């Protein structure tokens, strides 16, 4: 079995894996990173989305061996070391952008990726950008609001002179 080395949420793991093992199964079953979930078997739902060396990937569509050497961020590694929520997590909470919460890990990671590429997206760009992630509960409207809020919060945080509380807005 090939040996792979992964850094997941800041921790390095070295493991022998079967070549056919999917990244998501490696994360969940070997590394215990069960915050990332599996919602389908055709790469449609996006519930398993993680960041692989900074890019969003559906971890059901990546072999663990393909991720050798990569730096993986899952929803579990998004909050700061002090437990402070990432602006996207905070905005999902503030905007009631989740109900059952099963799609949420993937949705949050996809949104983080979207905002890295486009820090100031329009609603339409948010909807297009999250097209690969399915949610059955929310109707997406509050997710769009949350991503918009998170974008504003992250832009403010990036501008050093301003100080705006995270997750503001009604």
């Amino acid at each position, binding site marked *: 079995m090939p040996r792979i080395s992964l850094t997941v949420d800041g921790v390095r793991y070295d493991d022998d894996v*079967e070549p*056919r093992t999917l990244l998501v199964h490696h994360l969940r*079953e070997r590394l215990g*990173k*069960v*915050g*990332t*979930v*599996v*919602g*389908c*078997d*055709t790469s*449609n*739902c996006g*519930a398993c989305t993680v960041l692989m060396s900074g890019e969003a990937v559906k971890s059901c569509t990546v072999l663990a061996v393909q991720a050798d050497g990569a730096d993986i961020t*899952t*929803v*579990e590694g*998004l*909050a700061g070391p002090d437990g402070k*929520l990432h602006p996207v*997590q905070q905005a*999902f*909470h*503030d905007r*009631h952008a*989740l*109900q*059952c*919460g*099963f*799609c*949420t*890990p993937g949705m*949050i990671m996809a949104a983080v990726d979207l905002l890295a590429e486009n820090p100031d997206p329009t*609603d339409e760009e*948010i*909807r*297009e950008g*999250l*097209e*690969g*992630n*399915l*949610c*059955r*509960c*929310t*109707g*997406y*409207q*509050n*997710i*769009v609001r949350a991503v918009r809020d998170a974008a504003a919060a992250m832009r403010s945080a990036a501008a050093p002179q301003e100080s705006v509380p995270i997750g503001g807005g009604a």
Partner: protein
Amino acid sequence: MTVTDERPAAEVGAARRRKEDARLITGRTMWTENVALPGMLHLAILRSPMAHARLVRVDTAPALREPGVVAAFSGRDLPAMGLPCAWPVTEDMVHPDHPALAVDEVRHVGEPVAVVVARDRASAVDALAAVDVEYEPLPVVTDMEQALADGAPLVHRDKGTNKSYTWVFDSAAAGTGGSTEEAFANAPVVLRRRYVQQRLIPSFMEPRSVVADPTGDQYTVWSATQIPHILRFLLSVVTGTPEHKVRVVAPDVGGGFGGKLQVTPEEVIAFAVAQKLGKPVKYTETRSDSLLSAHHGRDQIQDIELAADRDGKVLGLRVKLLANMGAYLGLVTPGVPLLGAFMYNAIYKFPAYRFECTGVFTNTTITDAYRGAGRPEATYAIERIMDELAAELGLDPVEVRRRNWIGHDEFPFTTVAGLTYDSGNYEAATEKALSLFGYDALREEQKRRRESRDRVQLGIGVSTYTEMCGLAPSRVLGSLRYGAGGWETASVRMLPTGKVEVVTGTSPHGQSHETAWSQIVADQLGVAFEDVEVLHGDTRTSHKGLDTYGSRSLAVGGIALVNACQKVIEKAKPVAAHLLECDVNDLEFRGGAFRVRGTPTEEPGKTLADCALAVFAAHDLPDGVEPSLDADATFDPENFSFPHGTHLCAVEVDTETGRVSIRSYVAVDDVGRVVNPLIVEGQVHGGVVQGIAQALFEEAVYDADGNLLTGTFVDYTLPSAADLPDVVSDRTETPAPGHPLGTKGVGEAGTIASTPAVVNAVVDALRPYGVNDIRMPCTPERVWRALQGGAS
């Protein structure tokens, strides 16, 4: 009870952010699939690729030789365990056996044929290929009308028929109205339509998963279910295991929408295998397994006839339904259409109504509850035909409704279907919706586009709905031959530090009960929102309850919760009186504290926390006072709850491509008083979108051989964010008179309302082209074909 009413409600009505979120946004959730136990084995299930076949041979021995395999079973190897149907709707209903694992015959694609148990999931799945099955194909029927024709292939050959039952409601026979024959004989206008409720797949995002752990003669079952209490009871009945030896846990559950209101073959198989091997086992379905074998919804053919006078006043309604049961009867399969039977009359008053439903077996996956269960189908048909009536008479569709609806001053109103609507104000909701929507301006624009023969036409659709929710008065369920009651229960426990534990018999899977119940308890007991913990979903802590479906949790369980809180206050009274050295009758409870009546609120008094600590120590209690402030309450409603509302949808239809896009959508819902507007709005958004999905996107399709052609998310097309509009959601508030909080249900309302609003809009756009119906989902192809052929 009136004492607490004097205090302004601080929490109920507030847009509290949810308690549930902390674990869900950080990936710290406990899904069933996350359960891992020492020595746990994994199941894989071999499913039939044939829609109907005799099982000549199921040989599992070759699978045992595969690496990692521990055991393998066919239906013959496990004890006979028939899956339950709790709703025999008629005395003579044909109710075939439904084995969890097929024994002699398979009757739909996806039916479990064999199970392999291995040390890891991949080995179990790999070894399925080694199971040797010989199928002898039998004739297949998937179409309901073909299934009822003479000489049709029989799904259950021993039953001699594909008809399960025919159930009739007739207002003349029931004494709730007149005869439809008379009403139709003399009616100046009679409309006849056939509407098709396509088959849908609930598509909760979390695939179903079950873990069964035997420890001695005790069993713990974790399951991604909406119904842990019902599952415990029925697992005990089905497997013959004493109920007190079975514990069921529904941890965090990722959506249900009725799709997890089932006792599944997989749960029973996992239980039986765990029992047989004495080891914990886990089964988690793939999405493809889920779409193929978890129960489906809708799938009805609705023949509807409406009689009216020339002013648009409805005189009578006749409905004849065919309802596809699938190959077997699931937990409430036969009863789903009956939940619609009482809703075809909707918000209208007319004198005569007849409903007849025939349940039909076909070689397809079973149908059962899906968000709204019977009520969306009924609402669709009546709201569609009300638009047809408007078109027939050249009236505005809103005006036709106005001429028929129950006035706000006519409540309580007993309908032609025999239900008593407790409250409502259809005028107010409609006025608000029309104004938010800009109805008149849109009609003007529509007129202009029609006159200019614009390639993109504008359509406006209205849906004025009500629904019966808060399932359900136990006596009514009994009269409909349902196997259980409809009560709900709650426990409130005061901890010595003043914190409060609440146990509910409802079982949330996205509905935010932890937050809403905390708000209610905070107000009732005068404690902090943060000091309340809501426990649910584990039959060890929540020993009884009837779980979550039918928009019942707050409507029924909320009353049990309020009653339990009131009992706690009553129990605390003698303790508080003792601490304050006063007479019990001189006490009042206000702002979370007991004080001698008339004492200013600045006086600290004695809080429930003070009483809880005194009871915990129990050093100095009055004689005869029980050292406990815990209380249980169980509540059985006398009536359903009847939320209502008016939804308006504007669509643009490209007449060259058939593409429909929603331009605006307004939902004004009256769900009574609101505990948390954030949660209510979320339920409306999600509900509306699921209804839009039926109107425009989703359909489960079988070919003539019984193969599901929409077995993945590639083909079963759930809408994404990019496919959907923003919904403008607002409310009117007519408190439910029978409820101490005044709340009604909200979980299903959006789905019930939105499907007809959207399809009415699409048809409205195309009426000048001679189109008066389009089959759902209104895909570009269907719309385009309708445009080519005129009326479809």
